[in-house]
């Protein structure tokens, strides 16, 4: 008969779950060191041999327990098929082959100056000026041409393609990053007109008309509205989303597959349709006012599939060995999930939630249809319109007054700062796989296991002392009798 290696979970019953192997109910408990009379010598040696084989190669690395992260890492590498052999000491790592050649730098500088000079000449002498962006485009095309010509002078065809691809790839990356920088800097610069005034952070717009200067009125009501809306949306979507993700990963069934498929489909739902749905049901069909609560419902529908999906991915990465170990020690499924699965995946789950939050905070279209626009503070989420920062931006920049536009940019800058802060928090907390610990977390885990080890050791010691005393007692009694 073959037996599986996986431990069978112990049913939680009314009695305390047995932690050791069940004691044989014989009259005399056999001492641990003595060989059991029933077991043959062959099976005993086999067990001893397998025990030797299973021993880790360097057991001195950690005091007693291995950290969960290390196992998870090895599994992930083997699963990714990176060529790392099972149990090989060191996984293959990529060496960085990026290097800068002096000739290439000189060629690039030469080609760039030639291209700029030629384009400048063309634009001043031959063609009339056509704006900065087309200048850049023409200069870039010329630059590529000059660069190829320069490389061609002393390299072969393969090298020319290599250098050209390198230059094109670098410029694509630079373009994208430059565009990002322009977006951020432009918004901050235009917004700084408004948000450098203190009143922008503390006031609402109830006393400030469109023609009033920037020293009057502010966007605090928008920030309050954003926070209230996202708080309500998260209050619904975090418990529901995490519970649903746990359902998907812990109870695999045809129903779970259906839920997963539908949730994945709904991540494609355009955000405006979430708003339209709530507008048509909550506002029109049920007859409630447009309010912050309606907006948070719309945001909930939008971020719920995002949170469920990314949380599901994270939870599926929790090593099955951890769960089985928990079940094997007699924990119920609920305690396994609560004490093992969720803590192991904590950083990934936090990232999922924070990224969903960033998405929900920045989205205008669900709020546009459901919240209504207002210029004053409204702290009641269930009645009356409430404005959020992106919606305020959207409304203000449609005005033709420069001060209103500046306020809109200010609101956008504040919003962007909020998203950046959330994102920074997500990167700090998360970005790690299930069970992979930060340096501090690792230290904490190691300290905890050292404490446990000490606790066990002292208990063993106490036990040994008691055993010793128990063993001494008859001797002493004997001695006393003599």
């Amino acid at each position, binding site marked *: 008969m073959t037996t599986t290696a996986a431990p069978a979970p112990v049913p939680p019953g009314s009695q305390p779950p047995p932690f050791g192997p069940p004691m044989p109910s014989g009259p005399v408990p056999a001492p641990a060191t003595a060989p059991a009379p029933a077991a043959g010598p062959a099976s005993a040696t086999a067990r001893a041999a397998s025990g030797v084989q299973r021993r880790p190669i360097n057991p001195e690395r950690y005091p007693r327990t291995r950290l969960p992260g290390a196992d998870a890492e090895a599994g992930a590498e083997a699963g990714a098929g990176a060529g790392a052999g099972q149990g090989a000491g060191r996984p293959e790592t990529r060496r960085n082959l990026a290097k800068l050649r002096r000739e290439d730098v000189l060629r690039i500088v030469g080609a760039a100056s030639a291209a700029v000079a030629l384009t400048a000449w063309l634009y001043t002498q031959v063609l009339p000026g056509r704006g900065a962006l087309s200048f850049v485009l023409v200069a870039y095309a010329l630059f590529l041409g000059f660069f190829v010509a320069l490389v061609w002078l002393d390299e072969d065809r393969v090298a020319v393609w290599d250098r050209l691809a390198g230059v094109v790839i670098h410029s694509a990356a630079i373009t994208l990053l430059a565009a990002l920088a322009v977006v951020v800097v432009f918004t901050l610069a235009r917004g700084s007109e408004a948000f450098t005034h203190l009143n922008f952070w503390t006031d609402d717009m109830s006393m400030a008309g469109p023609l009033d200067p920037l020293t009057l009125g502010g966007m605090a009501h928008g920030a309050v509205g954003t926070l209230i809306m996202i708080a309500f949306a998260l209050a619904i979507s975090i418990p529901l989303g995490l519970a649903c993700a746990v359902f998907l990963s812990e109870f695999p069934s045809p129903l779970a597959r259906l839920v997963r498929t539908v949730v994945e489909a709904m991540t494609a739902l355009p955000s405006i349709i979430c708003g339209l749905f709530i507008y048509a049901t909550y506002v*029109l069909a049920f007859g409630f006012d447009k309010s912050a609560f309606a907006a948070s419902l719309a945001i909930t529908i939008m971020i719920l599939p995002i949170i469920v999906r990314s949380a599901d991915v994270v939870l599926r990465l929790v090593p099955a060995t951890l769960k089985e170990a928990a079940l094997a020690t007699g924990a119920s499924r609920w305690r396994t999930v609560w004490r093992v699965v969720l803590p192991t995946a904590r950083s990934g789950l936090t990232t999922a939630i924070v990224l969903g939050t960033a998405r929900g905070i920045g989205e205008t279209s669900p709020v546009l249809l459901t919240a209504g626009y207002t210029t004053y503070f409204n702290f009641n989420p269930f009645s009356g319109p409430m404005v959020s920062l992106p919606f305020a931006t959207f409304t203000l920049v449609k005005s033709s007054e420069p001060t209103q536009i500046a306020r809109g940019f200010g609101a956008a800058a504040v919003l962007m700062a909020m998203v950046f802060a959330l994102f920074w928090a997500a990167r700090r907390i998360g970005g790690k796989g299930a069970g992979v610990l930060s340096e501090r977390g690792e230290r904490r885990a190691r300290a905890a296991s050292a404490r446990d080890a000490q606790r066990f050791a002292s208990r063993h010691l106490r036990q040994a002392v008691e055993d010793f005393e128990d063993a001494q007692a008859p001797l002493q009694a004997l001695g006393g009798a003599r």
Partner: protein
Amino acid sequence: MTDTALIERAPAEDKPRRVKTAAGAADRVFRYGAHGSGVLVLAIMTLVGLFLAIRGAEAINAAGGRFLTEQDWEPNSGRFGIAAVLFGTIAIALIAIVVALPLALGTATYISEYAPAGIKSFLVGVVDLMAAIPSVVYGLWGFFWLEGNLLPVARWIATNFAWIPIFKVSRFDPQDPLATPTVFTASATLAGLVVAMMVAPIACSVMREVFAQAPVGEREGALALGASKWGMIRSVVYPFGRGGIIGGTMLGLGRALGETIAVYLVISPIFVINWEILSTGTNSISSLIALRYGEASSFELSALMAAGLALFAVTMVVNFAAGIIIQRSRSGESS
């Protein structure tokens, strides 16, 4: 036990087994709670879809087959269809993808292959951050910065490349030095470029993740055989990451199709199919909804729902296709 049975049993995989024991009270509550939340999420999501379908079906029934061919949008007079808005949506998304794909591919290749080790994680963070910037910020940038800078370029292209049909602008006469550049404002190209900035980071992060998984052994094998760096990328990294490239692009396309606010801010809505992507006027389904929901009667709302349903269907098809392509590819097996 016979030998064959042993042989069959030997390579059994180490799969998680079903737990068949009776559960305690807390476990039963947990089980019902988890199932309940799953069913609740399913119900909400289905409800949104069904509601959209049922309300939309009203309008689609009223319009019949002309819903797909009619360009006007006047539901109250019974003359409405999504031809123009759907065309605009797809045109904007395609322009966005045409611009975003090379940018995303180049940036992903740069981060995974060329970037010095020190700035790699910083760049990864920057690109992911870019994907999280609110769309209204991109809309502002498009409306206040890009539009002005794009005018001369659009004019230059319309003057020199008018022989390519889509770059022709019939209301613009290149010979007339006083011709106003306002025919180039609020064009599909502008909207497409703004959306491109939003979808490029999304596509880029999918591609980067896949490129980073390309096997080290194959990379070094290619280099050892004498391939240049570009040769190695072309023969190892790109074939390995093909699923990621296609999938990431389609994921971006899905996002581009549904984008509302950034598009709404920069376009001037029209209800005609406009093939001239450089000239003023385009439209998209999501900005149609944002534009018309406010004063909509019940029937108009159902027409908007129908348009939303069409958008949802297109987006879902694109996303599903993306998911399948990513999963089927060699690199996507683990994800």
